[in-house]
């Protein structure tokens, strides 16, 4: 019996002593933290996408409080949320153009030449084996490396092609660096017209491997309201994002290969099965 009592008392005493030591240490070595950082962190989306250029939401919050950046650098938050943060801290929110990702390729398995592939299911590994299984050297490989990197599930793999959903995409840019073919760009979210092709090859060569390649026929360039709305570089046309065309262009231009698409309709699957 005494043995038990001794043990209990000893343990209790030791516990009390250590509690005192810990308490004293915590007081003596306390680091003063800005309470605002924690509040701002809680106001941020908390997905840690890194789209702001900082190492996650907490780091970004610290940077805002310290005045190193502005709240609108967060690509994920909606404008109201950004305004709330700015009001809380009594600073200006600033303005940042909303962007979203565009995968500049429309070559799904249905419209491209494709070889069987049985290696690692990752675009960056597949790119090392004959440049990917699809015939085009510049197109989407289709093993979903970008889709896995997306923190918002905004990239859908549809018939071996990465398709961005503009309504889900926040423009954080996480997918951009994962693509071994450098297919993904961040384009202004206000623009809907994009050329879904990235191959600089000659038109005839492109058509051999892909039915929906841009063949640089210039129909869209001519149909545009002003001359430089669509820029042509070699055998590839691209939207001029500093002077973008309006969405009507896709209807007017009648792109013969359907490489010119509206991002919203592309995401909705409106162009599938159009090319035979």
């Amino acid at each position, binding site marked *: 019996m005494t043995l038990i009592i001794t043990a209990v008392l000893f343990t209790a005493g030791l516990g009390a002593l250590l509690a005192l030591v810990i308490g004293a240490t915590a007081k003596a070595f306390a680091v003063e933290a800005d309470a605002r950082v924690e509040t701002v962190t809680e106001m941020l989306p908390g997905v840690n996408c890194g789209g702001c250029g900082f190492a996650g939401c907490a780091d970004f919050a610290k940077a805002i409080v310290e005045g190193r950046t502005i709240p609108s650098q967060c690509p994920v938050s909606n404008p109201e949320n950004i305004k709330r943060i700015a009001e809380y801290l009594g600073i200006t929110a600033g303005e940042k153009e909303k962007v979203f990702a565009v995968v500049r390729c429309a070559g799904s398995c249905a419209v491209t030449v494709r*070889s069987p592939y*049985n290696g*690692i299911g*990752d675009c960056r*590994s597949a790119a*090392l084996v*004959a*440049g990917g299984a699809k015939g085009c*050297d510049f197109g989407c490989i289709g093993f979903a490396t970008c889709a896995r990197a997306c923190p918002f599930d905004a990239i859908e793999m549809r018939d071996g092609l990465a398709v961005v959903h503009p309504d889900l995409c926040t423009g954080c840019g996480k997918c951009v660096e994962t693509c071994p073919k450098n297919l993904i760009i961040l384009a202004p979210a206000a623009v809907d017209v994009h050329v879904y092709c990235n191959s600089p090859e000659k038109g005839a*060569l492109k058509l051999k491997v892909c039915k929906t390649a841009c063949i640089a026929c210039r129909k869209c360039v001519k149909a545009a309201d002003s001359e430089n709305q669509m820029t042509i570089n070699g055998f590839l046309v691209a939207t001029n994002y500093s002077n973008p065309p309006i969405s009507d262009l896709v209807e007017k231009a009648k792109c013969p290969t359907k490489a010119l698409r509206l991002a919203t309709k592309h995401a909705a699957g409106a162009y599938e099965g159009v090319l035979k």
Partner: protein
Amino acid sequence: MSDKPRKFKGGVHPNDSKALSASKPVQTAPLLEKYTVIIHQNIGAPPELVVKKGDLVKKGQLLAKATGFVSVPLHAPTSGTVTALEKCHGPTGLSVPAIEITADGKDEWGSPFEPITDWQNAEPAVLKQRVADAGIVGMGGAGFPSHVKLSPTKPVDTLILNGAECEPYLTADHRLMVEQTEDVLRGAAIFARILGLKTAIIGVEENKPDAIAKLKELAGKYNVTVQSLHVNYPQGAEKQLIYALTGREVPIGGLPMDVGCVVQNVASAAAVAEAVINGHPSIERITTVTGEPVVNPGNWRFRLGTPISKAIELAGGVKYQPAKLLLGGPMMGTAQNSLDVTVMKNTSGILLIPVEQVSQYTSEPCIRCGRCVEACPMDILPATISQAVENERFDWAEQLNVMACIECGSCSYICPSHRPLNQQFKRAKAEILAAKRNQQKK
């Protein structure tokens, strides 16, 4: 050196399947109407074009000139007209620039180099310049410019000729050693003269007894030692061959010259003999067209720029639909997705594989059996590196010496869980090199 066959540590023993074409004498492929010569056929800087569309060229005329020390010139495979400078399908699966030559059927030599008949007494520098001018590269598969290897910056005491041909199915070097024994040995003697050495060793795997016998018969005349080697893949890899023949280990990241060796392929030796003694540049090579689906497997002497489709036609076509087309052997060869690829200086084989030999595997988790570690000829730890790569820890992979990997594929071959180890290491090496390049830019 004893007569006992020599070997290195590790390796695997795939079925060599060489019987399909080993006894078939080399035939010369008939002249084609068109050749599509890929411009960049060597490791190092691509050569620079010196002809334009519409130019008339003679056989052996310069098409593109070397653009640096690690670069080799390219010569016309036949006489005719340059009809196009377009992109064509390359062996890596990507489009590459090429020169299309429409033959005039005369096959006339232009002004080839001056033959150096008295090569035994010629200046080593003159011989070396000829090797560079003739556009000779390592014809075993790598395509590394031969003259660069002949300019070691460290003292060299051993010249090794690589006649191992350890890749299953391939018999091009085998037939070359049997039929052009004298050329191979002359080439070896020329290499030795350039390096200022008296002797050379030629290593040949035991499964080519006729080649060994033929070489031994004539080797004495050229001061060359013939050494038989165990049949063990990858016996023909440079570092493994050096270890087997001399017992020296090339340090990680090092070159053969770090241990006083220079290794050259036997086909390159024969090409050098041709360039020095007859004055002909490197415009053709012996390639094995083989595989179970091929009607008449064999060895052909193809001009550079011969499309694979024509090569397979020459071999009588196929009996049934093959599942895979490889350039090179089954272990290290690269899979092709087009028959438009053309024969290059380093195309040692054109291999068609039937469906039952192409593994459609599903990878399972690693069971830590260690068979890959035993098989690895470079003594690295494939299983652990694989774990690092799967977690995208390329820094860890680098610490584990993934850069020493020679991509021989022994680990993937032996793995009971069918893990794609070789592809993972390729990825790791590519990522590490890319990171280094980015760092240099900054």
